[in-house]
């Protein structure tokens, strides 16, 4: 409380400071006369400073100093010192481009600022320029294509979980998400889709990544620490890399108050739909009625509602008994799926106020986001973000820095995902072409019960209008840092920071649904507190040719999560969203998750002659999640750098160059409560609350996981800094993985936690940045390219594979000696000698199970960002590329199985002729005539056939081989099938639905115009206006998946990549962004 008061007083401090005025103004440009924006101007030996604006104009208030030196500093230009006197009022400056090496300061682990050239590992700064304009309502999605070695799998809903994978996955079973650190506060990076199943066996609601609600307007910079080498000082939680986010603060300028406004409105719409067929309607084997009982008793018409699949007759407008029991026509409704969708809107408005003096700075911003999505009532977001940053120099030696981020978010009706019966959007796999959206109304009868449909189809309008869910999040991220300059070069930084996240949510399924007539109401409340207490003693010294940066620190991390979950599994009355509406007592399920990690760490970096650098770090963690005798673990890192341009002659080609190498280890603990087995509540039976032993066997002998990583790299600046080129090669391996391995149930357990297995990652990252034109017309290109291979070196003893996720029999596996993520399932059997595909005597596919279908890992990923500007115009676009990796599409299996996909058209006409008109039997289509004779006319197409396939016969060794004639030649099968059976065969011949998931996407486009000075001058006080047209995910330039199936689609943000089932249709967003400063 005292602390709070103190902060509040400081908050108003800037307003009561007054001082003298002595203002110097001028313009800053380069040789060509082009104004330079953002040049820092500093009054030497003070902290008074300013920056130049868009037109190169600056002004600085030197206050009581009437003479002295102004230092003009701009990246890529030589520093210029200019004397001024009492009379200096106007001072125009021309800066000369520097051929010298750059002093580029970057933020490294623990927020320590280092000169980039001295680092022995790679970090990459993310271009945040377009993020606030080409916005995604999910901030993490905007990281796509922004850094090499960072793979982003976009969330499937605006509020869903995004997968961010830095240098591949290190852990087989954990989510492998990086640690996010905002202004020094490490955040909980758990994903919100842990309960999302492939098909109906989980919560199926994706609550998103907590970090995704950050307002990009508040972000100053993002630095990515990729490997263990960069993040070793963060310890356990950083074994998957770190994303360091620094929020904006007021720059030390002239105590003026600036107001920035950013207003963005975008529309979201479906980008594409699958290719449907609108030729044949509901029915079976070319018919709409199989026997008289399928015809309506009163009208005698075929009842189309009896069929779940569209393998019926041609849609010619025949009379049928339609879905809502009325007489209708059997005709195509080509917009039946499109009609379920709408255009969504997202608008965000941000206002930020900044003010800084030489003693303190303050930035306060507020932003409001309102959005909805492509389905009525779904994904409605209301978000308020408040960000405050304040710093104050209390004395010469003591400074405080505080920041506070507050997010309040309400999301209504997150969409259930994947195959969930509650997912209103998955009907696009099942909706037969003669069904229209009008057929779907009313969706319930007079007793409020949903109309029932054959098969998996559920009326989407029931799900849209009868079910609801809501979550309200309140999050506070706060940081308080006190810097004490004890002596020159010796600093003590103490810091307390915390992130508090409270989520209250409910889920309501109204009574009367066909899949759950009693309905459901559930309340979940969680509260996560995440506290860090840290003290770091920092010593920096330069003597002779040596420089030293060293630190010693301690940290305590406390995670306290508590939560409750209560479910009323059947309701008493409709529409009432309350636990008391349950017809039985709803037991409380507690969801605790606690952890404490104590750490002590140290690092020392020495430099010699500004040419050679050596980094050494060490850290010891004590984690509460491990058994007492293994819970302390130490890990070191060492790295070296040489700036080789120091000892080669100055030349026009290589301006700057360094090579670096480093080795690091990071230990990692495990999750809460994995040491001792206990009993959990199973339910209530016979008036007894019964208990059962946890089916996962815990382990009293767990050891920490250990990731060891080596990287080497080169960083260069070429042609007078026009081109930057960096390359990194790395290899890491994670041992002693803490994995829950499946065990035979006969042991009494389903799985147990063990330390086993090794995962190796190896990769290359390249980064190239070129200023192609740098005059009035500017063109800059940034290219990222990276390749990573995650392979499973070993698993537990006797375990060759682990199933990560599955869609029925199609699984994603970690397999020993294999790249991670093998996809396995059924495939057509082939002749071992010739590879000829085999069929059964009935013409259908002969298959083998457990066949390798592909692998989900990409071969490489990359991006190109181009930015052009001329006068006030600017044009930026980002192209994001992923090459390689396979995707199994459950959606395609279903939509082909249901006969609604255009892929099912071939052979239908021929089959109708054969089956309905000529009345040929299955035997005849399979070439069998009467009395064991061959059927004549075997060449005429009678449906579909497996081309080049032969009958499988069993040879003497019991292997299935192709049928051969007496001469040993393969007899090719002439067994014609109904297209429907071929469609059904997709369950056996699953290679059909495995696609190359490569893509090239136009990810972001920003076309902007910054209003010229002379226009703005007419508007009082306005300093800057920029208007942009922005777009995200506009165009998939290249892909091999079928239309409507996004190559990025998946069922989870976890490790089970490579499976897709009922994923949402891909969307794009286009909008307008207005930026204003006054």
């Amino acid at each position, binding site marked *: 409380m005292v602390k709070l008061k103190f902060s509040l007083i400081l908050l108003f401090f800037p307003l009561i400071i007054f001082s003298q005025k002595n203002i110097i103004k001028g313009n800053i440009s380069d040789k060509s006369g082009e104004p330079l924006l953002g040049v820092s101007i500093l009054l030497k030996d003070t902290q008074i400073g300013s920056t130049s604006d868009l037109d190169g104009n600056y002004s600085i208030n030197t206050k009581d100093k009437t003479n002295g030196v102004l230092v003009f500093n701009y990246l890529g230009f030589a520093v210029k010192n200019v004397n001024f006197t009492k009379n200096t009022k106007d001072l125009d400056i021309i800066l000369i481009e520097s051929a010298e090496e750059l002093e580029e300061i970057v933020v490294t682990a623990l927020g320590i600022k280092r000169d980039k050239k001295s680092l022995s590992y790679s970090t990459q700064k993310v271009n945040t320029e377009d993020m606030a304009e080409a916005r995604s309502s999910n901030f993490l999605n905007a990281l796509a294509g922004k850094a090499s070695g960072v793979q982003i799998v976009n969330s499937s809903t605006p509020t869903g979980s995004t997968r961010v994978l830095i240098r591949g996955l290190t852990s087989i079973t954990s989510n492998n998400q990086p640690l996010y650190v905002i202004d020094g506060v490490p955040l909980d990076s758990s994903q919100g889709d842990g309960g999302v199943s492939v098909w109906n066996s989980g919560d199926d609601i994706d609550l998103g990544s907590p970090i995704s609600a950050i307002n990009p307007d508040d972000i100053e910079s993002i630095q990515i620490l990729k490997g263990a080498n960069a993040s070793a000082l963060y310890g356990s939680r950083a074994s998957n890399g770190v994303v360091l986010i620094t929020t904006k603060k007021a720059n030390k300028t002239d105590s003026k108050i600036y107001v920035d406004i950013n207003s963005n409105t975008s529309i979201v719409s479906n980008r594409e739909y699958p290719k449907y067929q609108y030729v044949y309607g509901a029915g079976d084997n070319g018919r709409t009625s*199989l*026997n008289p*009982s399928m015809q309506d008793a009163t009208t005698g018409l075929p009842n189309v509602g009896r069929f779940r699949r569209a393998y019926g007759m041609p849609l010619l407008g025949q009379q049928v008994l339609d879905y809502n029991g009325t007489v209708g026509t059997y005709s195509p409704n080509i917009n039946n799926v499109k009609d379920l969708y709408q255009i969504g809107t997202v608008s965000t408005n941000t206002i930020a106020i900044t003010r800084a003096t030489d003693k303190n700075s303050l930035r306060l911003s507020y932003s409001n986001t309102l959005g909805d999505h492509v389905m009525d009532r779904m994904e409605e977001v209301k978000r308020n973000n408040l960000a405050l940053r304040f710093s104050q120099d*209390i*004395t010469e030696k003591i400074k405080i820095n505080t920041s506070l981020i507050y997010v309040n978010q309400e999301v209504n009706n997150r969409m259930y995902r994947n195959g969930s019966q509650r997912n209103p959007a998955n009907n696009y796999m099942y909706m037969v072409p003669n069904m229209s959206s009008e057929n779907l109304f009313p969706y319930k009868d007079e007793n409020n019960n949903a109309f029932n449909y*054959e098969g998996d189809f559920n009326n989407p309008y029931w799900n849209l209008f009868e079910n609801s869910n809501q979550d309200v999040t309140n999050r506070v991220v706060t940081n308080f840092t006190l810097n*004490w300059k004890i002596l020159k070069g010796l600093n*003590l930084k*103490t810091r307390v920071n915390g992130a508090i996240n409270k989520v209250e949510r409910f889920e309501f399924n109204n009574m009367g649904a*066909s*899949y759950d*007539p*009693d309905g459901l109401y559930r309340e979940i409340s969680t509260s996560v507190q995440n506290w860090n*207490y840290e*003290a770091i003693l920092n010593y920096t010294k330069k003597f002779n040719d040596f420089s030293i940066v060293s630190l010693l620190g*301690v940290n305590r991390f406390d995670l306290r999560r508590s939560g409750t979950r209560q479910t009323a*599994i*059947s309701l008493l009355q409709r529409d009432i969203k309350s636990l008391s509406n349950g017809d*039985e007592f709803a037991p409380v399920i*507690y969801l605790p998750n*606690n952890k*404490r990690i*104590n750490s*002590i760490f140290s690092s020392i970096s020495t430099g010699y002659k500004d040419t050679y650098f050596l980094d050494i770090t060490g850290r010891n963690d*004590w984690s*509460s*999640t491990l058994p007492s005798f293994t819970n*302390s673990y130490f890990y070191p890192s060492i790295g070296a750098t040489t700036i080789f341009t120091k000892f080669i002659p100055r030349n026009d080609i290589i301006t700057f160059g360094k090579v670096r190498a480093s080795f690091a280890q990071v230990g990692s603990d495990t999750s*809460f409560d994995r*040491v*001792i087995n*206990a*009993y*959990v*509540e199973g*339910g*209530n*039976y*016979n*008036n*007894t609350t*019964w*208990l*059962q*032993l946890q*089916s996962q066997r815990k382990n009293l002998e767990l050891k920490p996981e250990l990731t060891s990583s080596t990287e080497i790299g080169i960083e260069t600046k070429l042609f007078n800094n026009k081109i930057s080129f960096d390359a990194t090669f790395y290899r890491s391996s994670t041992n002693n993985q803490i994995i829950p391995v*499946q065990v*035979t*149930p*006969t*042991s*009494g*357990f389903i799985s*147990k936690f063990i330390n086993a297995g090794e995962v190796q990652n190896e990769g290359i990252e390249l980064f190239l940045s070129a200023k192609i034109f740098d005059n009035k017309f500017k063109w800059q290109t940034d290219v990222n390219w990276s390749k990573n291979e995650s392979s499973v070196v070993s698993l537990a003893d*006797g375990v060759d*594979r682990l199933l990560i996720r599955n869609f*029925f029999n199609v699984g994603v596996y970690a397999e020993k000696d294999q790249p991670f993520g093998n996809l396995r399932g059924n495939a057509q059997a082939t002749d071992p000698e010739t590879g000829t595909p085999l069929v*059964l*005597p009935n013409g*259908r596919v002969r298959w083998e199970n457990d066949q390798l279908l592909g692998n989900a890992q990409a071969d490489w990923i990359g991006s190109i960002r181009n930015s052009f500007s001329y006068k006030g115009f600017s044009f930026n676009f980002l192209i994001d590329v992923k090459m390689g990796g396979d995707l199994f599409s459950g959606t395609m299996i279903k939509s082909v199985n249901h006969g609604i996909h255009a892929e099912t058209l071939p052979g239908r006409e021929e089959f109708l002729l054969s089956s309905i008109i000529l009345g040929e039997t299955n035997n005849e289509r399979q070439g069998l005539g009467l009395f064991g004779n061959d059927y004549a006319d075997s060449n005429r197409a009678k449906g579909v056939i497996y081309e080049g396939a032969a009958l499988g016969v069993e040879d003497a060794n019991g292997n299935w081989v192709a049928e051969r004639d007496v001469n040993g030649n393969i007899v090719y099968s002439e067994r014609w099938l109904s297209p429907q059976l071929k469609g059904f065969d997709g369950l056996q011949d699953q290679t059909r639905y495995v696609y190359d998931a490569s893509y090239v996407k136009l990810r972001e486009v920003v076309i902007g115009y910054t209003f010229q000075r002379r226009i703005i001058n007419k508007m009082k006080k306005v300093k800057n206006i920029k208007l942009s047209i922005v777009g995200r995910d506009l165009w998939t330039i290249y892909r091999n998946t079928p239309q409507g199936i996004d190559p990025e689609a998946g069922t989870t943000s976890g490790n089970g990549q490579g499976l897709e089932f009922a994923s949402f249709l891909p969307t794009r967003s286009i909008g307008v962004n207005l930026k204003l400063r006054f």
Partner: protein
Amino acid sequence: MKLKIQNHKIKVVALIILFSFSCTNKFEEINTNEFIFSEASPEELFSGVVINTLDLVGGTLNDQFYNTYASYYGGKGGQFNRSFYTESGLDGFWKKFYVNILKNNQDIIDNYENDPAYTNRVYIAKIWKSYVYSILVSTFGPVPYEDASKGLNSVKYDSEEFIYTNILEELKEATNNIDVSGDILEQDPIFSGDNSKWKKFANTLRLKIALRISAGFPSLAEQHGSEAIADENNLVSSNSENVTMKWGIEQENWSFNYSRYVNLQANDDVVPYLNFYFILNFKTYKDPRLIAIAEPSSDPITIRDEVFKSGSLTEKITVEYDIPYFGRPLGGSAVVEGWDLDANKNLLNGLPNRSYSQPKRDLFMAPDMAYNIITYAETNFIKAEAKLLEWGGTKSAEQYYYDGIDASFQQYGSTGNAEYKNRDGIKWGTVSIGDRGLFGLVTSGISSEPLDKIVRQRWLASYNQGHDMWCVQKRTRILPLTDQFAPDGSSGLVYAPLSERMIYPPISEGGLNNEALQEAINALGGNTLYTPLKMNKKYTPVKWETLSDIVEFTQDFAKNFYGDSEDDLIDAGITYKII
């Protein structure tokens, strides 16, 4: 201000020092989940064991396998039905058996065995263990027994004989050692804490299992069977002593049938229908229990029948009327290729599913329905058979047989048992021709053989005890049933006989305990549905396609449903049409 800074300095230094010394002292507390339980009483564990056993054995498995294998259900879900299973399904059953049921049950034994205050409760857990293993071993064959539930990575399989020897021994011990006045199981879900009933359960189960293996392991069977029957006072001796598990009215305890078929209003082709031959055996003998077991069809089949004209004993008329009770054959109306039957004569062609009878709703579809483990009627039929095997027993086989019929009538609240017992075929020593089935391949006729009579009555009396009757049929092969014609097209079979066993779960065992599994498969001689178990009587497959000379579509199964005269129709209040 200066002082404050000094203060801070001290605090920070103190913090660092404190830190280094107080590193890990609260760790255990932090890493403990305070919302779960470190201990569980036998009662808390056993209730879970029972509801899990009920859901699995009496619910899912009964629905998916046993009731079909016992020919209680007809084709459900079409051609796949006879041996329908999925790999992941098998895997799930295996987990339920070994993890949810056996491990938790074993936990009672392991934790309380050495505490004399829990003697009876430990025996109860052992009885349950034997019961569950008796299901496992008769369903799969050799299964892990001795090394199971111990947390081992690799668990060996034990032979059928080994397992039977052990479970029979355990049941013997429990019968002998349960102290009726000793500790009781509070909140006992089966017998409300009546130890004497547990004793009887143990002994009756021992007899029942002994009989079950009498074809495969005759001497082991006789040893235990005769000992159990010698203790006849400790056998289930009235319907009030029936061993029954019950579901509940709370949603979490709803019966499988209610939640799957009633609550979800499952569509017509997935709900269970009673088996054709099962209903036929009720119809032929005008069995009053039929209306207690079957629900009349909501869309009954209309048949054409010949009856004596009212008041006449010679003049026949042709009438048309609806029959409300009609069973569904396995495989629907499918025929065997080569029979060359005229499909137009098939009454079942295009027949809506609703025309078949479903199980009685209030008894077998209720949320809180019961599932019988052992009934008094069944015990009598078991004793009748034991008598035939000369294991002992105070009454004659005939008397046990009649007692069984009486007990069954009493169980269903049906009357007319005296009349029923007097019918041809039912009455001891008599013969009946019965009615022909759809194809005329088998009939509902009963021979004068005592075994034929006893097993037929046990079948009719034990409806919904699918597992028991599957075992009885595998042991005796005496119920007149056909194979399933036209089973799943991809299996390559023209007809599928009764499964001898269920295959091992390929994922959890093949993947995780493969070495032990392969050993078991080698010992068993294969891992198919038709790999015979040692406990089964050898099956000689019928070559159905060679029976083309006797096969024809008949309507005998429906003939004279209400009697052979128009007067019977009038008496029954049936609307009929004279053709």
